[in-house]
């Protein structure tokens, strides 16, 4: 299976997203250049983390107009899987691939830390290898991760099972401080209505090797492999 990782100007998680399928799944990765109109036959597109266009104006606001985004959008419309991580999540929201927006962390500070997530929906193509309500630890690293949407959208997301990951208390985080950015309803990751676009602030691609502290992100890549290859 082939993962295509988009490099926008200012992407810096592209390398990690590129390595994860190769190192953890022994699958193929290719970089996709933002100026191209070619997905190079990728089965799964990853919009990686970083600071596309320096996050100037708003994170993701400028990158979503990149030429490659037309192809990514078409791929998503065809039902192709898109994994949008961190800055990728911000871009996906700006591009309208996912509802809502990501705003400045409530603390006004960038925060990098391992964070506990609860898998809210283990029935998506991205999460089938997790157990429902499983607690996992995955790093976050962002300054603009506060998920916001209007109440109606939030209710719909919850009703349709589109909330996939939620920040949750565990031994690392005190119960009152587990939500690292003030996201509404503790939302850390959501899928599109059709279930093929996942946006999340935490970095599963940084958690595929136990030597780095956690391999809890591995199951996400394995889920994709299992479902997309099938």
């Amino acid at each position, binding site marked *: 299976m082939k993962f295509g990782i988009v490099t926008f*100007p*200012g992407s*810096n*998680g592209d*390398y*990690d997203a590129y*390595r*994860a399928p190769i190192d953890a799944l022994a699958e193929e990765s290719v970089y996709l250049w933002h100026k191209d109109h070619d997905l190079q036959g990728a089965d799964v597109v990853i919009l990686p*983390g*970083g*600071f596309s*266009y*320096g*996050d*100037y104006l708003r994170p993701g606001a400028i990158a979503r107009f990149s030429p490659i985004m037309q192809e990514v959008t078409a791929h998503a419309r065809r039902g192709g899987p898109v994994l949008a991580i961190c800055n990728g999540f911000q871009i996906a929201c700006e591009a309208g691939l996912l509802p809502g927006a990501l705003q*400045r962390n409530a603390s*006004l*500070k*960038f*925060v*990098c*830390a391992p964070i506990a997530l609860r898998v809210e929906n283990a029935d998506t193509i991205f999460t089938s290898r997790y157990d429902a309500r499983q607690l996992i630890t995955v*790093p976050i*690293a962002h*300054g*603009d991760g506060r998920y916001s949407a209007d109440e109606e959208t939030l209710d719909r997301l919850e009703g349709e099972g589109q909330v996939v990951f939620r920040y949750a208390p565990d*031994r*690392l985080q005190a119960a009152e401080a587990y939500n690292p950015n003030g996201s509404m309803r503790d939302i850390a990751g959501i899928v599109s209505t059709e279930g093929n676009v996942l946006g999340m602030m935490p*970095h599963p*691609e*940084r958690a595929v*090797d136990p*030597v*780095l502290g956690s391999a809890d992100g591995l199951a996400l890549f394995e889920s994709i492999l299992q479902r997309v290859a099938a």
Partner: protein
Amino acid sequence: MTVTARPGDPTITPALVAEHGLTTDEYDRLVAMLGRTPTFTELGIVSALWSEHCSYKHSRPLLKTLPTKAPYVLQGPGENAGVIAIGDGLAVAFKIESHNHPSAVEPYQGAATGVGGILRDVFTMGARPIALLNSLRFGSLDSARVRYLFAGVVKGIGDYGNCVGIPTVAGEVVFDPAYEGNPLVNAMCVGLLKEEELMRAVAEGVGNPIIAVGARTGRDGIHGASFASEDLSEASDAKRPRVQVGDPFTEKLLLEASLELIRSGHIVAIQDMGAAGLTSSSAEMAARGDVGVVIDTLKVPAREEGMTPYELLLSESQERMLVVAKAGHEEEVVGILQKWDLTAAVIGEVIAEPVYRVVEGDRVVAEFPGIRLVTDCPTYEPEARESADVKSRRARDPHAIPERAEEADPLWTLERLLLSPTIASKRWVYQQYDHTVRTGTVIGPGGDAAVVRIRGTDRAIALKTDCNGRYVFLDPRVGAQIAVAEAARNVACVGGRPMAITNNLNFGNPKKPEVYHQLREAVAGMREACEALGTPVTGGNVSLYNENPTGAVYPTPVIGMVGLVESLAHVTRAAFTTDGDAIVLLGDNTDELGGSEYLQRIHDEVIGAPPRIDLRAEQALIDVLLEAIRAGTVRSAHDVSDGGLAVAIAECMMMDRGRLMGAQVDLSPWKALPLRALLFGEAQGRVIVSTPDAAAVLAIASRGGVKATAIGTVRASSGLLEMTIGSRKLRASVGSLADAYHEAIPRIMQRTASAQDVALASDSVV
């Protein structure tokens, strides 16, 4: 060629020369070198190149004495960064740099551009940056201004490194009134390269084009390397910006483009335009290659209209590089830059004639004979005399200081020390740094040293910056030795063999005899320690004139150490992990108290001699520790430093806040020592390890000639620190120690956190 003054340039007067920071003697040298009066442009060039910052005139003779060689050193001092081989054809490039003065004026941008500069120094060597570190000094956090500086510097470092996508993996932060008004901001970068990709900034090849790459040149920072003067060029000066604004986004593009350029084979040299911008980068590259160059300032892409050669040459606009390309390959170079949305412009050429020439179209505005421009700068070895105040402080006996009543309970003292911002957890700081990007960080900030794996191998590098300025103040020679030894010890604690150092000499005004004394002695101490520990110096930076109204800062020679971890299996962390493990102390306790955080924090005294250091014993300790780690007998290792043994033990118990560990410790063998020296003294050469096999560790230590004592047991779920010292029994709850240690800085910063956030949240990058 005939040099002609530009219309509108000021005439050269003694006052103008003085404003440019040149002494009469230096000016005479310049005139002798030229055989005529310099033009305004020439005066500007020389004032920059002969500034302390670029010329090292007060430190060069001292730096020459440092050891720089080892079989694995591929590049020692003299280049943008040092480089050492780490096996498998791989090498690491690393360098440290200061941005103290810019950060004092504008903490956010000052610190951010400091990170930008050191990144460029490393990637110009052909290395991909893989880690950032920093070393920070501030005054007391009780002051609102200090909290503002601290918050701004941390945010500036974080935003820049985070945006470029280089993990910030380690560092140190010290708070002491000695740094009030003059914070120290040192940033270190480490990069990885293949040996054959090593690139040097040496101009060569007559006819090769010189190309300016990256951001356009503006009027920012023209005062930077040389001088501050308000009334130079009439018009815009009042508004001339003194601070440089960093653009990490452009830096990221520049990084990728530069590495692609270097690998393309189209260029022969590349150097960043850092201090004194175009002037120093072009002059230094020419001097290293012993060739001539000509630069046409009309061709330099400018951000503003009407910039003069003087301004274009001296601007310190950020995110710019100077490249010497192979003749005929200009288009390919421009093509690579265009791919990354950057501009490139041919602005000059390497010439056979041994001159450094600047033209503005048809007019020659500056011309110097060859490399003398760089080499003819005078050096100074001023008078050195130890300050009488320091001498008398050192002579005072710390044991004569009466204990405070509260000290009857040593746990009170312990808690006070854990609350000291210098000792307390720096999580508030490093949580703002992305330390997991690039998926290489095996041990991030918070440990004794960082460990970054080398992908494709089973190896890793261990990294740490260190310096205890108070020790250096009390005894510069010993203090500098300790700085090197402590960095080495930290690297060994995580399983790394210390390899080489970079250093940043942060001192006061060298023209003051007591400051030059500190500088000279500290460099001597550094030399001795580096020789003894086998860690050559591959580069560094000197920052002088760090003074505030009450005098110089503590002399602070920051050491940036790089070590090699031979197998990921050796990676060792500081926190206790396992119930029932034995706790073993390597090294010995003493009655020393001088220069300790205890005296400063509890008694507000900076007195006594810093702890003795025995460099041979340090080497033996490192050898024993590494042997025990490699034998697989060590479960955790943590060195004893600020705050002494009690603080170190407490840290082992609560460093991992999610898994607090209890411990039972018996220090009765040392019950004859003064209790406060035993618990809080900072004797050197000590490491606390936990092990399932104490006998094995003791045997290795005894073979290696290192004293080792089993002092206790890890009690995973007791929730208590239980200490016995003879008949004395102490009990503390780990939970409350952890609360003090982990919450000290957040609580202080909360007091005014919002004030800084407002001023800072808006700073462009976020």
